[in-house]
């Protein structure tokens, strides 16, 4: 078992029984992408000072993020991902323009949501490194049409029904577990009201930072901007974020293909040893 296989298992879930149906095949295909991009990451990370790593490691990391989130989305909302996958086979699928059915970071993973009016929250309260942030409340509007129902994996509604309850279940499980994984401890150190910031804000920031690696800066040499230290750090941060998101999916019955917690714990240790330390 390699760390990239572990990453695949955590994000795309347990292997499906044979014979595989269309859904299982799709999860398998996403899993293969997670594993492949993970291997590229592993290869570049082994030689972070090389020129090609400074060009391609950020790209591979962003692809790991995208493929991993697609895997999680497919376990939460199969029809959304299957629609995108099957639409690609349609004769009217036009490769030259962005298609409405394609998966997108903005919309499928994160969405812009109305925050509480700023004047209802004191600046100090809102902006503290120690005091937890003011929780944002999900709206369950009875008048909202079905096409407007937020389906993104990091919507406020998902935090209410998936991420926050999963985080609480995970914290309670950790008390009884023997694992000393650092990624577990970091997750447990999060206050419940920090869970959204941890995934949405941190994830979006990371995604944007990695995208800068795809749209290069011309003032400074590439290898100075994405030098070895920065690449190793970006790798640790990205794989940590993906792994920690995936851990929580195994503490919610909303996500298909969950794996037992002992096996999940073994995967996390393996990933930590290769990518994070």
């Amino acid at each position, binding site marked *: 078992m390699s760390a990239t296989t572990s990453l695949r298992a955590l994000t795309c879930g347990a292997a499906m029984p044979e014979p595989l149906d269309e859904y299982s095949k799709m999860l398998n295909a996403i899993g293969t992408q997670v594993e492949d991009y993970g291997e590229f990451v592993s290869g570049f990370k082994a030689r972070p000072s090389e020129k090609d790593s400074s060009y391609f490691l950020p790209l591979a990391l962003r692809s790991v993020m995208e493929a991993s989130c697609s895997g999680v989305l497919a376990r939460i909302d199969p029809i959304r991902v299957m629609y995108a996958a099957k639409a690609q086979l349609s004769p009217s699928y036009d490769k030259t323009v962005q298609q409405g059915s394609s998966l997108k970071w903005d919309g499928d993973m994160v969405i812009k949501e109305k925050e509480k009016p700023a004047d209802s929250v004191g*600046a*100090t309260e809102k*902006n*503290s*490194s*120690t*005091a937890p*942030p003011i929780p944002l409340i999900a709206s369950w509007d009875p008048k909202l049409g079905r096409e407007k129902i937020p389906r993104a994996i990091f919507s406020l509604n998902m935090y209410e029904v998936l991420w926050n309850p999963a985080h*609480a279940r995970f*914290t*309670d499980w*950790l*008390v*009884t577990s023997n694992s*000393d994984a*650092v990624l577990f*401890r970091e997750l*447990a*150190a*999060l*206050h*419940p009201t*920090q869970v959204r*910031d941890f995934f949405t*804000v*941190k994830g979006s*920031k990371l995604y944007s*930072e990695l995208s*800068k690696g795809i749209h290069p*800066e011309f*003032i*400074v*040499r590439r*290898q*100075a*901007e*994405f*030098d070895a*230290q*920065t690449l*190793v*750090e*970006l790798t*640790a*941060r990205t794989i940590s974020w993906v792994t920690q998101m995936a851990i929580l999916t195994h503490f919610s019955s909303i996500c298909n293909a969950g794996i037992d917690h002992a096996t999940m714990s073994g995967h996390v240790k393996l990933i930590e040893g290769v990518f994070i*330390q």
Partner: protein
Amino acid sequence: MSSVQIEEQAELVLAAEECSDELFGVLHKFSRYEEKIIRSLTAHGPVLLRGGRGSGKSALMIEASNRMKMESNGIFSAYLSLRYLPLLRETGLQYERFFCQLVSHAIQAQGQLQTNNEFYFEQVDNGGDLQQALIDLASKLERRIVLLFDDAAHLGRENASSEFFDLFRSISSRLVSCKAAIYPGVTNFGKRFDVYNDATVISIARDERTDGFDEFFYSVMVARYGTLANRLVSSLNASEVAGFLGKTVLGNMRAFVFACNKLKEGEASIGLSELSKCLVDLSADYYWPLLEEVAPKLGRYEPLVEPSKEIAEVIFALCGESRTTSIIIHRKFCQNFSKPLEILEYAGFISKREASRALKKGGRGPRFSVNLANLLEVTSGRRLTQELFRQWHEYDREDFTEVNSNSAVFDSVSIPELPEKFDLDIFSSPIEALAKSLAYPYGLTPRRIEVLKEAGYHSVGQLAEASDDELRQLPLIADATLTKIRAVIAQAVWM
């Protein structure tokens, strides 16, 4: 440097920024956990390094700075301690001007060192010009820039913190990363700086559950006190004792050094009774005086020191009764006592290990580990037995007591109204406040206090503003004494 000289120096030097370059490398050890933090400090991207007094923030920043200078030709870095009085006193444009000039000078000095004097950095006095000058420098050198700001935010001066974080955000860019050391309890980041969006916050927490915890503290003990381990009685394993002391001080490096200094006193072999005495002394001579020392520099939060003490007494009484080393406190109390709990975290009485754990009788709350020195002080017999040593040294998942939501244990603690504005008390304190004491072990002697008062320095503020030349002209103030005076002022004024 011989091992005896190293040991002598190690006893005296408690703060990384007071270390000579030569000694820094000898005394400071970095575990895998610290290496990860150093990596974040050298990589691109804004970072806030959060940790209590003596947690090792400065050492990590200095080490990161040294490594960038030694190992990387793609980074231009500068380490700046922000221990300057005008940064505490000024606000608005005055603060901005002083800060920008300080950064400009530091970059010029660093540039001259790194490029053999063929270096020019424009001296600027506002954030916009500084941002542009830094981008121009990065472009000219074809390097990215890392600025490490130590002592960036003072708990007692929230306005200054707000000014700092505005500038931190302004000058950060794709080519310039700012890293700043802050304390638990720093909450005012100003209106423009979003702490979750504009920086990665790293909390230093050397957790006793970490792999290699004992070995790490053993390596520090060996580096600083080469002969100490040899004095342990045969029934005590040196690595376990180092790990136990590490757990005693909740992973805090300054308190660990203090504990080793205590243990080193005397010539006798070191057994459990010496270890017990070390812990009891640590509680009486280090932890409680630290709260007294910190009070006059907390500004408007100074009235919270008394309730913090009361809360600490309740926590330690509960843990002492149940002989447990951690406590889960229902979140209702944590919301009411958030600032006092931050003060206790800053001073090293407690350290948060999990943010939200289920209590047996319902509800959730954070779990805090408590320091074992104050715990032993309230434990029946105040003596470490083999059994207690083993019990406290080993990590046990069930080793906690609980404060439920309907508990009355905190009923007697009341939180006073805080004044709107409040200057730092320490500036108006008489210089006798800096006399040698438990809070200031390297404080001023009565004779020196007399000399200073005769010269017209009556308050700590007046003394802090005096120039080196002015002080050198006084009788009994040689260069070595001046360094000592500056160190005591720094301890008194800065966090």
